[in-house]
């Protein structure tokens, strides 16, 4: 049946409420990004192209830069670990925590941690693990999944959140005023911060020359969560490197504007070691876990450009499919255009399970236009469609195209078909007992055929 891809099914079944939340939130994000980039720069494209070339260079020399970063971090007293798979990363983190006797921690938002489902794993191993970003905290209370890279609860409205707070005892009564919701979370979470023995974060970038890693938050949650903590563990995808500190100016100026329409995110933290000796607050021990989890396979593939991604979410905001279907429709950690490329690739041997995602796109190109690192997402989607084809992945929603191919490659057949098609204007095809045709017409109104008109006109024009 046409329009019966899994993503279409999901989109049809989400509530109007959820669809409005996603649509409004993402459209506002696109608008803000556009305003601020064009107000601040005459030619934002130059900066995007530069960022792309820096990232490509880094990826093409990834081994060298990873070695440099490891050396720089180690020389500053940071323990550096490597993890091949998500399971390796989880085990490594658990062992670090157990080694330091940690029983309670706070975790700042990290897509890498979402990717490997770190939270449930740690909780299952007896460690209290609390999300400190407001959106992720609400996700955790609801046992939900984030549906957007930077706006994890874009799919929820204030009423749902107020009900969650009441149900979970964060607040004694129902109150859906956004300011009240935020104040209640403030009171609840700061008490937890003060009891946490460790802080887990991701990293937005790691500078290979000095090992300085970057964390950005608007709320200040990672800074607060780590002030009383004794141990800091950063889980970092190996593609997060950039060559030099100097390059941060390029990426920082693009990240905030692309993600939330801000020049800079409120808190931009640069860390390359445990706290200094004179400082009473902050971790005494720092661990960085560099995680592969499929990234080297992506690097070896013909879709390696996706590793440039700096996780800003601009492609999600602008995507007509994402806006209608929501991030959850992508059945993986990364939704939207970036997810349609990255998720099937990171699934490795399980690629066929998500091989339909690259087809859930009209290839309109908006994702490429807004991408701060100029990833040619539509091209990558086509390469993945081809990969699915080569691997003979069955696609339940594929329309049989072979009759069209026969017509389109034979001029005489095409001409006959065009002329004949006019006859359809007079036939009651709405009642023709052809199942695929009925499915198709169920969602579309067929315009009158003007088949052959152009040929006729063109011929007449040549004669005169």
């Amino acid at each position, binding site marked *: 049946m046409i329009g019966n891809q899994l993503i279409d099914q999901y989109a049809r079944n989400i509530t109007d409420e959820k669809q409005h939340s996603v649509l409004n939130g993402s459209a506002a994000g696109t608008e803000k990004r556009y305003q601020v980039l064009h107000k601040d720069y005459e030619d934002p494209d130059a900066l995007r192209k530069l960022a792309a070339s820096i990232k490509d260079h880094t990826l093409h020399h990834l081994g060298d830069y990873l070695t440099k970063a490891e050396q720089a971090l180690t020389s500053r007293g940071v323990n550096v670990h*490597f993890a091949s798979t998500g399971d390796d990363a989880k085990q490594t983190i658990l062992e670090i925590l157990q080694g330091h006797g940690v029983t309670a921690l706070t975790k700042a938002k990290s897509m890498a941690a979402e990717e490997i489902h770190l939270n449930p794993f740690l909780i299952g191993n007896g460690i209290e693990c609390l999300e400190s970003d407001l959106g992720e905290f609400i996700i955790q209370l609801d046992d939900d999944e984030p549906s957007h890279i930077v706006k994890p609860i874009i799919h929820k409205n204030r009423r749902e959140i107020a009900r969650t707070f009441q149900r979970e005892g964060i607040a004694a009564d129902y109150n859906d005023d956004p300011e009240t919701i935020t104040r209640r979370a403030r009171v609840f979470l700061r008490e937890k911060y003060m009891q946490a023995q460790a802080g887990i974060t991701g990293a937005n970038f790691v500078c290979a020359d000095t090992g300085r890693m970057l964390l950005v938050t608007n709320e200040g949650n990672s800074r607060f969560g780590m002030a009383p903590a004794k141990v800091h563990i950063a889980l970092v995808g190996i593609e997060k490197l950039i060559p030099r500190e100097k390059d941060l100016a390029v990426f920082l100026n693009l990240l905030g504007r692309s993600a939330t329409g801000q020049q800079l995110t409120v808190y931009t*933290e640069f860390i390359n070691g445990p706290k200094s000796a004179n400082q009473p607050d902050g971790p005494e021990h720092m661990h960085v876990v560099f995680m592969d989890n499929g990234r080297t396979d992506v690097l070896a593939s013909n879709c390696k450009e996706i590793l440039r991604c700096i996780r800003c979410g601009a492609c999600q905001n602008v995507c007509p499919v994402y806006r209608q279907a929501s991030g959850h429709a992508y059945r993986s950690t990364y939704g939207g255009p970036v997810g349609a490329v990255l998720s099937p690739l990171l699934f490795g041997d399980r690629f066929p399970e998500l091989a339909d995602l690259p087809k859930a796109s009209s290839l309109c190109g908006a994702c490429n236009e807004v991408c701060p690192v100029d990833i040619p997402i539509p091209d990558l989607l086509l390469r993945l469609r081809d990969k699915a084809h080569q691997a003979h992945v069955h696609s339940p929603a594929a329309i049989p195209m072979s009759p069209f191919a026969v017509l389109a490659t034979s001029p005489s057949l095409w001409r006959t078909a065009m002329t004949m098609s006019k006859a359809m204007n007079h036939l009651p095809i709405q009642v023709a007992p052809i199942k695929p045709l009925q499915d198709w017409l169920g969602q579309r109104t067929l315009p009158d055929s003007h088949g052959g008109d152009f040929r006729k006109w063109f011929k007449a024009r040549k004669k005169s």
Partner: protein
Amino acid sequence: MKETIFAKIEAATSALKTKAPLPEYDVALTHSAPRLEGTDLWEIFSRNFKGVNGKPMSSVSELAEFLKTTGQLHGYCDPALFDTIGAPLAAAGLTVETVYDRSRYDDYQFGITRATGAIAESGTVIIDDLRTSHRLAALSPWVHVAVLERSEIHRTISDAIANFGDSPNIIWCTGPSKTADVEGILIEGVHGPGEQIALMI
């Protein structure tokens, strides 16, 4: 595991026909001309800082007035700043402690700490481990006052990066703590301060 990862990276990158060179570029490309309009760095900073809902101030009496009218009467002040800022505030009737006791983190309505500098282009105050007396004193109080000198203001983001220095922990604060997680509505003072003040001395 490390060996496996490096071997896979090597296999992937050595197969590339061409490798992208490291681009050399002028960092001026990253500068936002409209944000840098003007000549006086404090003025440029103040304009951009106000743009992110920060409050620039250039006298202790202005600060005392703000704290009193908003009812923020009890706070912490870095002992190194007590003579210049803490004492005049105390004389104006405010309670000023020079010890930050973590067990009473909610008692401090304001926290006054030393900034290492500021960035004019973005309206950012810079705090680093080597100079700030307490990270928490800039986080738990509702009002954070970052104290800086005129000569410490960097013109651009790229200037501030070029002058990172050797601190293991540097944080840039560009306005008060905020969120738009609930329906995209901007709320300030999520976990950190709801008021970010930059006091130039």
